[in-house]
């Protein structure tokens, strides 16, 4: 068993695509719009060098898939920053931080030394939380 895709809700798929590719530097894995399913758009991205794992950038559908109230609740949770976290690893947290900062990524925490490595945090435009960790080698 392996992890293939994991989904995050996004406020706006175009805005998310721009952020995940141009700012985070991820690759587009799939961008398929299905007219027969009400223009449902399957949009996935992933980091270069890790082709078997993708993040699904999922728009919040309206009724009948998700009722208005639930949709609003998801949007609210996302904007409040409580819709979930993606944990990324990097070989060099401070270098990745500088690169992402240059590209305009909004960091909530600069790299800090932790018992488990060096750790920074940022958010995507929707409010989803990301950690960027250089994991300490305990070997």
């Amino acid at each position, binding site marked *: 068993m392996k992890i293939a895709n994991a989904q995050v809700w996004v*406020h*706006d798929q*175009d*805005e998310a695509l721009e952020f995940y590719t141009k700012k985070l530097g991820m690759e587009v894995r799939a961008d398929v719009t299905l007219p027969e399913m009400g223009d449902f758009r399957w949009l996935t991205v992933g980091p270069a060098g890790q082709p078997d794992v993708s993040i699904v950038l999922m728009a919040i559908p309206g009724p009948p898939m998700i009722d208005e109230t639930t949709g609003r609740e998801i*949007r*609210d949770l*996302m*904007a*409040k*920053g409580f819709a979930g976290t993606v944990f990324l690893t990097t070989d060099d947290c401070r270098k990745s931080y500088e690169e992402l900062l240059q590209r305009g990524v*909004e960091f*909530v*925490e600069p790299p*800090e030394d*932790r*018992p*488990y490595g060096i*750790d920074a*945090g940022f*958010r995507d*435009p*929707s*409010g989803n939380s990301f*950690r960027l*960790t250089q994991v300490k080698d305990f070997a």
Partner: protein
Amino acid sequence: MSRTHPTRHLLRAKDLADARYADPLSVADLARAARLSPAHFSREFRVAFGESPHRYLLTRRLERAAALLRTTDWSVARICTAVGLTSIGSFTTSFGRMFGVPPLAYRGLHPDPAAHAVVPACVVRFYGRPQHRTFREDTSAGDP
């Protein structure tokens, strides 16, 4: 749909409190981060997150102070400054109200948990926030 959710701006202010609690941050600074007037900001923040920005910032600071008491041998004065508070007297009072014991007694009760398990720092800060107890600052309706 592409318009940014208004709460997203409040989250920016909350993130600022989390990241820069050690600086002399005020509610006005947080309001600026959310691009709202202080009064409007406090109201909206409370609606979104269930407590005033003032209280959020204070519990964030006290959580950090508690962590420093548990994990360092720093003096109470140094810890007070390190978490962005200026008055040792009011720090000691707030801490006692929140945790039920004064800072040094709290230190004595809590051996370093990091010795038992490695938990990510963001998780420690999230779950370590003390449950707010009612005190004076609640009673003023216009809690800044």
